[in-house]
């Protein structure tokens, strides 16, 4: 880069403007809050990952190599709860979104900075409640909290876990609210809707889901709590309540929630693919609108989790049809990303490797979603490892890959330092290989009939399970490597400069790390997003 790289130490920026714990815990700077989230969710990820490691260890032997079934149940419950509510849902929105939404639209901060800080505190309070549930003996509901098991039959720490998720939900709501208001009201002059980077479209769509979906989860969990505490049984069959109503309300949120996890990743991928191919996105408006379409349709399909639950088969048919509909916008995105590579100038730095990994693995995971949306096939594979394979392909292979890609891409912006690219590429490769070895066998296990949430299983499934466990150990190592070199880079990494990748977008115009006010003066936007064709130096 031609721009003289000023060392991060010599300038005042958001990281060194103030020191001390207090300056962090009371900050209202969106960038600092993003860092707070980054630290906390990394912590949660490794707690959830440790639970997964123990689970995989246990499944090496048909009779359970490590723990009692009761303990195993607690492991997958806490794994699911932490990974979904405390890692994946806040991951990209609360870390990258917080950091980037104001920067990408050229604003000084989010619309409600204090609310933003409050969100983090709420999130941590929820996390603390869940961790308390773990320490005080665990919770074994599964992440789905199905009644009447959760309300009447379990005596583990259901209350504190459910309360934790309930509380964390408000953090998610408030973050989404903040983003929507910010994107609507605070765009820099010239930043029209169709000049916004696709990451913002994705964040916008995600926020819609967070705002309209999460409250339903909140009230549902509150009802579970009421039923547990006071036997005010709205789902209790003993008074004519219907446990299937619980499932409706739960999945009304939790299906859209899976798009809270994937849409932001999709946004990240749009940024990465364009930058490392030096190309405009192929079909900007198709990619943009497909995000909104996914968000809207995602609210119409929740019943596909309940095909064999005793739900009316007519409802099943409707939900099946709508589930196929939601696959179409995803397909549009995949094809447009691929087409963006056409005649590009493609370089293979680490973020791009993650992006390509995302496209491949998301395709494989998404296509197995079609199996599940097919009534007759889902009847066979529902609640088997096929489902587990499906969602890990999308969530670990897709969403986590996208998250890691995004972290690598914006790391120089966040910290002002570069990480060693060679190590990063190695880690990406290890993760890709380990991932496939872990989760591909699970598809086969699933079709063969191995049920999920099984601590012990018939011996004929052992071979595939051992393969999966072996893959998980590789995957675990793969995740530890970035942790090490990222920490290393904080101190020893080369100074990055404002725009190490030659990328477009407002966030790259300001120094790395950015000053507290983000921009020296409010930028004026005169170009479409991803104006890679334009001459170097032109603002864009």
């Amino acid at each position, binding site marked *: 880069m031609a721009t003289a790289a000023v060392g991060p130490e010599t300038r005042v920026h958001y990281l060194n403007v103030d020191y001390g714990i207090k300056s962090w815990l009371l900050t209202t700077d969106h960038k600092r809050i993003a860092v707070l989230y980054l630290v906390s969710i990394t912590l949660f990820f490794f707690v959830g990952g440790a639970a997964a490691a123990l689970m995989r260890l246990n499944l090496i032997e048909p009779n359970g190599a490590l723990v009692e079934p009761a303990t195993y149940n607690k492991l997958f419950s806490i794994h699911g709860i932490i990974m979904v509510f405390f890692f994946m849902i806040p991951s990209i929105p609360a870390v990258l979104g917080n950091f980037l939404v104001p920067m990408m639209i050229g604003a000084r901060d989010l619309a409600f900075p204090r609310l933003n800080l409050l969100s983090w505190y709420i999130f941590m309070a929820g996390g603390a409640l869940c961790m308390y549930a773990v320490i005080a003996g665990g919770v074994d509901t599964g992440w789905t909290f199905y009644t009447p098991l959760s309300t009447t039959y379990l005596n583990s720490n259901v209350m504190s876990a459910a309360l934790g998720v309930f509380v964390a939900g408000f953090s998610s709501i408030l973050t989404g609210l903040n983003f929507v208001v910010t994107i609507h009201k605070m765009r820099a002059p010239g930043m029209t809707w169709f000049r916004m980077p696709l990451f913002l479209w994705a964040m916008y769509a995600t926020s819609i889901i967070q705002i*309209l979906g999460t409250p339903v989860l909140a009230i549902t969990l509150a009802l579970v709590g009421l039923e547990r505490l006071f036997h005010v049984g709205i789902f209790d069959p003993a008074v*004519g309540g219907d446990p*299937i109503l619980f499932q*409706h309300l739960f999945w009304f949120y939790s299906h859209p929630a899976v798009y809270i996890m994937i849409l932001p990743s999709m946004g990240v991928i749009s940024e990465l693919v364009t930058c490392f191919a030096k190309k405009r996105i192929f079909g900007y408006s198709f990619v943009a609108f497909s995000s909104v379409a996914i968000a809207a349709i995602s609210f119409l399909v*929740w019943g596909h989790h309940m095909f064999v639950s*005793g*739900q*009316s088969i*007519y409802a099943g048919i409707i939900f099946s049809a709508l589930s196929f509909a939601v696959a179409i916008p995803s397909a549009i995105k995949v094809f447009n990303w691929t087409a963006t590579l056409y005649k590009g100038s493609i370089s293979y730095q680490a973020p791009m490797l993650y992006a390509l990994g995302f496209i491949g693995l998301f395709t494989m995971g998404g296509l197995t979603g079609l199996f599940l949306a097919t009534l007759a096939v889902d009847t066979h594979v529902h609640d088997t490892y096929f489902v587990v394979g499906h969602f890990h392909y999308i969530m670990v292979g897709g969403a986590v890959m996208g998250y890691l890609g995004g972290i690598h891409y914006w790391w120089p912006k966040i910290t002002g330092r570069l990480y060693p690219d060679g190590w990063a590429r190695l880690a990406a490769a290890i993760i890709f290989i380990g991932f496939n070895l872990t989760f591909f066998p699970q598809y086969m296990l699933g079709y063969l009939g191995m049920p999920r949430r099984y601590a012990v299983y018939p011996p004929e499934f052992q071979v595939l399970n051992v393969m999966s466990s072996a893959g998980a150990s590789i995957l675990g190592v793969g995740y530890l490597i970035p942790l090490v070199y990222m920490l290393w880079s904080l101190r020893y990494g080369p100074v990055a400069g404002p725009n190490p990748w030659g990328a477009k977008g407002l966030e790259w115009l300001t120094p790395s790390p950015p000053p507290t006010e983000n921009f020296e003066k409010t930028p004026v936007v005169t170009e479409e997003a991803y104006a890679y064709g334009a001459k170097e130096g032109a603002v864009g």
Partner: protein
Amino acid sequence: MLGHVVPKKIYFLIFGALLALTALTTSVAYVNLGQWNTIAALTIACCKATLVVLFFMHLRWSTRLMRVVLLSALLWLAILIGLTTTDFFSRGWTPIPESWETSRLPLPGPPPQGEFGTSRR
């Protein structure tokens, strides 16, 4: 001045209308209209809510965006209630008869109502 200042008179008019509608809905409940009781009660409630939203909450003078927010909330609520009820009220239709043509059951029809409701499957 940032927002619209509404004349006091309007507030009092709306207030009066709301009280009148409350009296109306209460008294209608004492008249046997069959199914229409529910419909009347809910219609009146919707009218009252509309008045509050438009005038007390200034939606009449707000930007289009705020209306879109409100309408999408209502739309989503309709989705939640609508699709959930599809399940409950079509359960009585199962089992699908052995062949579509030779259906001997007097179904489908509105499911019978009563304690513990429809024959569910």
